[in-house]
């Protein structure tokens, strides 16, 4: 990801998805072949997780934490929207005469909303509390809120947070049914924006109370609901505003203290309008704000963790990603288009989802 951002390489492509005729751009992962997943847990979503867990020595870091704290003291808060529905879709194309899945696809651990959490806990050997949060596109932002509570209360000594969503027919045709899928690479906050580009991802972080040993810290989280509509944001952005304010209050910061804002910024007309209105009101002129779904596509339940990792990378390297594809900005706040090198000390990430579910997360530097 670091290399792609710095080389100005976006992740979206028009290559068609198998058995899919929707004109769209996708942020698709080239997943390596793997034999490390048992037949009972095989799915594209779990393969995405296995691929992410194998990176950056993450699994070893978790093993070290288990060694230090004991297995029962290391928890897991996983976020997902799709879970392994990709596998359920495939199983439905192979129903037998009795309407049953073929034997090989009767996978209890896979065809359920907790599949990613169960898989990660199994892969990492975690014995602490484990849950899978599903709050649509806010899922893997909310994992930080739960993890922070668990750490503060001593429920755990360390906690793996993560998110995983994979491309599948449900999300492509689902967003297509709402007429939200753009045929071109998404252009958040552009006058000409035509909708979202979907993507897939998995990402993880290991949180402990050992702040001194860390380069970056989780400063605060804010959660809210719109209480307005299942799939349309509150027109005045009431829920968005509430969760940003709650995250700032939890961090004992004000908006002017935020150096970088990673916007929800999906590229739909309504979402960007709403978030733009809230940002015009709350943002101060010194905050860099960008919409990085233009690089990755909207990875739905994984968007929270992907954008958290982007914020953490910006904090530790000073590389602040811009907004791809957007040229003619329609927003009453300053949107960062070109990536920039600037030392930042605080970053806030917004994630808003169906069901009117919102979450903001604030990170800082030690």
């Amino acid at each position, binding site marked *: 990801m670091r290399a792609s951002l710095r080389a100005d390489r976006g992740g979206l492509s028009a290559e068609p998805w198998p058995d*899919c005729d929707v004109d769209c751009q996708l942020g698709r992962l080239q997943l390596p072949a793997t034999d490390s997943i048992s037949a009972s847990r095989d799915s594209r979503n779990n393969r995405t997780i296995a691929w992410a867990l194998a990176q950056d020595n993450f699994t070893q870091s978790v093993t070290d934490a288990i060694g230090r704290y004991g*297995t*029962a003291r290391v928890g897991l808060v996983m976020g997902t*929207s799709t879970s392994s*529905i990709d596998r*359920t*879709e495939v*199983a*439905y*194309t192979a129903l037998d005469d*009795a*309407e*049953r*899945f073929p034997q090989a696809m*009767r996978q*209890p*651990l896979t*065809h*359920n*909303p*907790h599949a990613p*959490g169960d898989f990660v*806990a199994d892969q990492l050997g975690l*014995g*602490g*509390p*484990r*849950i*899978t*949060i*599903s*709050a649509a596109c806010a899922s893997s932002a*909310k994992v930080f809120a*739960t993890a922070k*509570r668990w750490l503060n*209360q*001593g*429920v755990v000594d360390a906690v793996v947070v993560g998110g995983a969503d994979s491309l599948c027919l*449900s999300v492509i*045709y*689902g*967003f*297509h*049914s*709402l007429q939200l899928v753009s045929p071109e690479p998404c252009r958040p906050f552009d006058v000409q924006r035509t909708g979202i580009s979907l993507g897939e991802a998995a990402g993880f972080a290991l949180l402990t109370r050992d702040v001194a040993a860390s380069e970056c810290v989780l400063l605060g989280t804010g959660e*809210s*609901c*719109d*209480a*307005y509509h*299942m*799939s349309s944001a509150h027109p005045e952005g*009431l*829920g968005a505003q*509430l969760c940003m304010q709650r995250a700032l209050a939890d961090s004992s910061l004000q908006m002017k203290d935020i150096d970088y804002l990673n916007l929800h910024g999906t590229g739909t007309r309504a979402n960007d309008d709403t978030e733009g209105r809230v940002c015009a009101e709350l943002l101060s002129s010194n905050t860099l704000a960008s919409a990085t779904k233009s690089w990755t596509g909207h990875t739905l339940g994984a968007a929270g963790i992907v954008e958290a990792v982007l914020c953490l990378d910006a904090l530790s390297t000073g590389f602040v990603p811009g907004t791809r594809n957007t040229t003619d900005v329609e927003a009453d706040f300053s949107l960062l288009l070109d990536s920039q090198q600037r030392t930042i000390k605080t970053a806030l990430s917004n994630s808003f*989802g*169906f*069901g*009117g*579910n919102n979450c903001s997360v604030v990170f800082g530097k030690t």
Partner: protein
Amino acid sequence: MKQLFNIGIAGFGVWARGVQSTDEFLQARKTGFANLQEHEFVNPKPSAIPPKERRRAGLMINLAVEVAHQACEHAGVDKSLVPSVFASAMGDTAITDYMCRKLARPEKLLSPTKFHNSVHNAPSGYWTISAENRAPSSFVGGFRESFGAGLLEAGSQAQAYGTPVLLVAYDIANSAPFHDIEPVTETMGVGLIITDAQTTSASNLAVASCAYGLAGSTEKTNRTPSEDALSTPENSALNTLASANPIGGALALLEMLAGLDDPDDAQGQTLRFSAAPEAYVELKF
């Protein structure tokens, strides 16, 4: 075993075969849940959702919203302010079935309403809209351990916020192909108001210390085998109902609560719910 925090339970709601309100559950307990199996399951129609929306929402969403409202009313908490945690083993298998059948056909046409109802936090969305509630709300999945996992999360939130938290657990009866994955033969939903045990905004039916433990070999040596057992309802008719749904363990808690005349009556009782395949959440009252 690790002591976590104290929790209170300030109210509950329930919808299952033969019991369609808090009061009906309290009454049914007095008669030993004698007639549960004589009743047909009735679909809930939560009055907080307009009739047209109810039809679009489907059984699982209506079930969750119904018991959410019941629990708040029983505890006397402000519906517009209470944070909420929703938990289910399988989610809305009726919608999953609809989506996957449509997508297995060449034209792949989906209803936009069914699509937005397919997110696992759909009951949370309908609940917050119906209650005009902008507090935090989550769906928590823990597969067969969803009730215990949800209880832990709701307890943790109650400590963090210092306010009552609504926990809603439910699963709907399924048929092939999901019957092979996790057979659910009875639809049921349970709502609970969880407090931090000290809160003054709601009076507790009972107060417990909440602990998390592993059922594995490392901690087993100092305990008698019976201590590993998970809680099930004592009443056999209620136990039959409970065993037909992954969140059925919650009925053991409701059964205990329904038998209390006074919070102190609960003292000395211990209930255990699975929170992960080898782990449990324990409530020691």
